[in-house]
């Protein structure tokens, strides 16, 4: 780890002010990616701005429209939330399978989506449910939030404050984990979302994406068989020692099928 200034922010505005004034300052939420990065000297920030002292960012609430999860809500809190389980059980289920207990007790939804790891689980839920990301500046639709490999629509002084998930009909998430890291090699979230059927895929490509053909098929007939025959192209998908692009493409279909079956 290189030396850096450590500041525990008392408010979102204070944190935004620091990172807005210094391109080399970085925000720290759960730190599940950033702390290992620092320890390996793969990052050399001037200042680390810790959001863990900002009050009121970790709430979880539900109303008739859906669920709102505070940016600093831990994965374990989402997994254990009665409100989430009642409103969108697939979201609680997804959160309960992120990483391991240590990660779930530290990692936050805001940190996860701001990092936008191509193999993270939450992006699939946000896009699969048509969620809205609330920042200190604006509301961004999930479809517009995730822009590329570790890239989001967030500006330098923009901080996620909460994520709102609209209620959905049937929904489920299935992932095929990387045997080593247990991140998603492929994760597929299927939902009868508020604005129609959505199929969101994480892990397979550089960034979460939707599969229009599967969405149309499921809109016509919500059944595993409806997507079983729909393959996606391997072009542009990720490749590593654990999975070829072709294998990932194959797993998208398999996981989509299983997610629909799981959703009932």
């Amino acid at each position, binding site marked *: *780890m290189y030396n850096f200034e450590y500041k525990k922010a008392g408010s979102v505005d204070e944190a935004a002010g620091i990172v807005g004034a210094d391109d080399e300052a970085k925000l720290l939420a759960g730190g599940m990616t950033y702390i290992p990065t620092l320890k*390996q000297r793969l990052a050399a920030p001037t200042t680390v701005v810790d959001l863990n002292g900002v009050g009121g960012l970790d709430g979880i609430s539900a109303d008739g429209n859906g669920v709102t999860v505070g940016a600093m809500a831990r994965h374990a809190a989402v997994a254990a939330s009665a409100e989430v389980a009642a409103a969108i059980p697939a979201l609680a289920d997804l959160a309960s399978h992120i990483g391991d207990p240590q990660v779930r007790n530290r990692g936050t939804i805001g940190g996860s989506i701001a990092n936008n790891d191509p193999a993270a689980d939450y992006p699939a839920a946000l896009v699969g449910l048509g969620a809205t990301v609330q920042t200190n500046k604006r509301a961004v639709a999930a479809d517009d939030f995730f822009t590329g490999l570790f890239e989001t629509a967030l500006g330098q002084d923009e901080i996620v404050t909460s994520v709102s998930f609209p209620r959905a009909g049937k929904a489920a998430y299935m992932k095929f984990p990387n*045997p080593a*890291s247990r991140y998603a090699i492929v994760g597929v979230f299927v939902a009868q979302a508020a604005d129609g059927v959505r199929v969101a895929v994480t892990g397979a490509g550089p960034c979460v994406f939707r599969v229009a053909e599967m969405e149309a098929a499921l809109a016509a007939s919500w059944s595993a068989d409806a997507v079983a025959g729909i393959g996606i192209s391997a072009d542009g998908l990720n490749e590593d*020692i*654990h*999975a070829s692009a072709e*294998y990932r493409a194959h797993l998208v279909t*398999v996981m989509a099928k299983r997610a629909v079956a799981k959703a009932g």
Partner: protein
Amino acid sequence: MTEQGIGAAVARREDRRFVTGQGHYTDDINRRGQTHACFVRSPHAHATLNGVDTAAAGAMPGVRAIFVGEDMAEVGPLICGWAITDVHGEPFRAPPHPALAIGKVNYAGEAVAVVIADTLEQAKDAAAAVEVDYGLLDAVVDPAQATADGQPQIHEAAPGNLSFEWALGDKAAVDAVFDGAAHVTSLEFANNRLVPNAMEPRACVAEYDAGSGEHTLHIASQNPHVHRLVMSAFHGLAPEHKLRVVAPDVGGGFGSKIFIYAEEVVLTWAASRVRRPIKWTAERSESFLTDAHGRDHATTAELALDSDGKFLAMRVDTTANMGAYLSTFASAVPTYLYATLLAGQYTTGGIYCNVKAVFTNTVPVDAYRGAGRPEAAYVVERLVEAAAAETGRDPAELRKTNFVPADAFPYETPVIMQYDCGDFAGSMDQALDLAGYSGFQARKAESKAGGKLRGIGFSSYIEACGVAPSAAAGSLGAGVGLWESANIRFNPTGNVQLFTGCHSHGQGHETAYAQIVADKLGVPYEQVEVIHGDSSKIPFGMGTYGSRSAAVGGSAIVKAADKVIEKGRKIAAHTLEASEDDIEFAGGNFTVKGTDKAMNIAEVAFTAYVPHNYPEGLEPGLDETAFYDPLNFSFPAGTHVCEVEVDPETGSVSIERYAAVDDFGVLINPLIVEGQVHGGIGQGVGQAMLEHAVYDGAGQLVSGSYMDYTMPRADDVPSYDVGFNGVPSPLNPLGVKGCGEAGAIAAPAAVMNAVHDALRDVGVGHIEMPATPLRVWQAIRDAA
């Protein structure tokens, strides 16, 4: 058996301190004035070293010294301690391996320089500022290609990147048998390279006392005296009597902490230069890049059978990847610890094995849990299983047809081993029962109904533990003796300190050895303390590896206990006014035969230290040392049965059942033994399904972290069914055999045979370890 003697399932006494954070590991040691070392490591697999500029780094804050290879010219290179004579009668090529590279680097991670600074951060900062001018060379990574024409040459002293070609057996005779055989099974496969991954990374703290001239090295080592011997005799760092090596609590070794590495040599040497204690603890990334790796064989193997399914002969051709240099015992692994086990449990008539040991631009490969024996068991058991499938025989029955019968011991194999005892068929029968073999077809049908493929696989392994005797090992090239020492020291108040030359780094010696002493001498278990690891306390010993600590180290304890009893008998006879011949010893009491006159061993000890009324001419004290050189290896064997279910849609394999029946002879502590079996199987499952050190073509380790190197987790393995079929070894006083490596030796073949059995239904003929979902899916798709 007493309550806490031999055979009792005593909970490990050392676990309380380990699980409550009270262990003392090398990294816990901190000295006044301590400095920190950071090694500058080559990012390239193969390059000339055109210059190392340390000027800027040397001027940075806190830097005490920076050393490069040339600075250490007086220090001898790292050695390989097992000399091999090749097929031409020539010595193996063991090119020089300087602790810090000189002239060129031969693997990514090789140490080029060391920075010693007041803090670790300062050392790291300065290491990053050392400027190294590398001249990039093409790398040799694939062992199969290493000796081909036109490949980059790694060492001048090893033309064609060949360390040695070695063979065992009569090729012409074996070839002739193959020519006339009714059936020949032939397989080609790799034994995948593994990274040891001990929980505690390698670490050392080196100190030099200018007043006494004494060096002290605390190190995560499996064999502190071997470290001291090699560092004195070959590196000339200090004479043995001025070098104290202490291996305190050590968090796992699996072989990787046997060897003498660059870091401890550099630190010991440098501590006397900078006149400050120096600490180095490997970061996990460094462990991946510098701990000696395991396995990495490419093999073609053939088995010749007659029309009745009898094994006539075996022919094996192996290329063993040694990595960039020969590590401390690397040459023994693919030779005397491998080819000598190719008879397995069978009466195979003739065996010929040829081994080419080649250099590549990768981390050196050396002994890793099982060391050669897992590779041998995999060859034999994959061949047998394939032969059964090809000839339409039940794999269990084919094995039984060929087992060495229980009445044939001692049994001479065609590959220079003499098995002392065993009950191979008995273990197989017990394993079939434990595995529920008769119900397999029903379970398979059930899996099929759910869209899954189910397979069952056997592994009737044998291994050789406790390399011995010293004279035989020496005649085969070993540079050391392979005996063990024990010192039983009674204190005047009757309690006992046992000093052992073995080293515990997870084995539970503090418990098991105390049980042996308690059992043999009748001293309460709680009153026996086991001391190991400090060369200034313990007698010279060879350490712990190769499952030797029970059969060799435990036998030394028995021999020392015998001496204690012998002396105690003299003292008791004198005190009780009886003849020595009339004194019986049992349960801690010396009794005059046929009377109730008795003296407890604690009273004898007190008398020995307060010898007011004492036998004339007898030395005071009760403190006996024994050195034990075994008569032979011990040969644990057994049958493991694995049952897997494959999801053909994703390629995922899950282990549904795993039964193991092992013959470890007499069990000192069944609880510890069962734990060893569980851990060994876990590592074997890791090799078969999960773990793989993958290099790219440029010699970069792609699976260099836990993000890509798959360690077995609890949910990767089932709950095991473990049974024992112990046949006491007649060759050591405890009747024990080793148990530490058996699981890792047996499991890969059991798992892979099960995977092959499952995939046979969909036309897959061959799949390599690790059988990852990607590989299984690809194999199914390719077969379709």
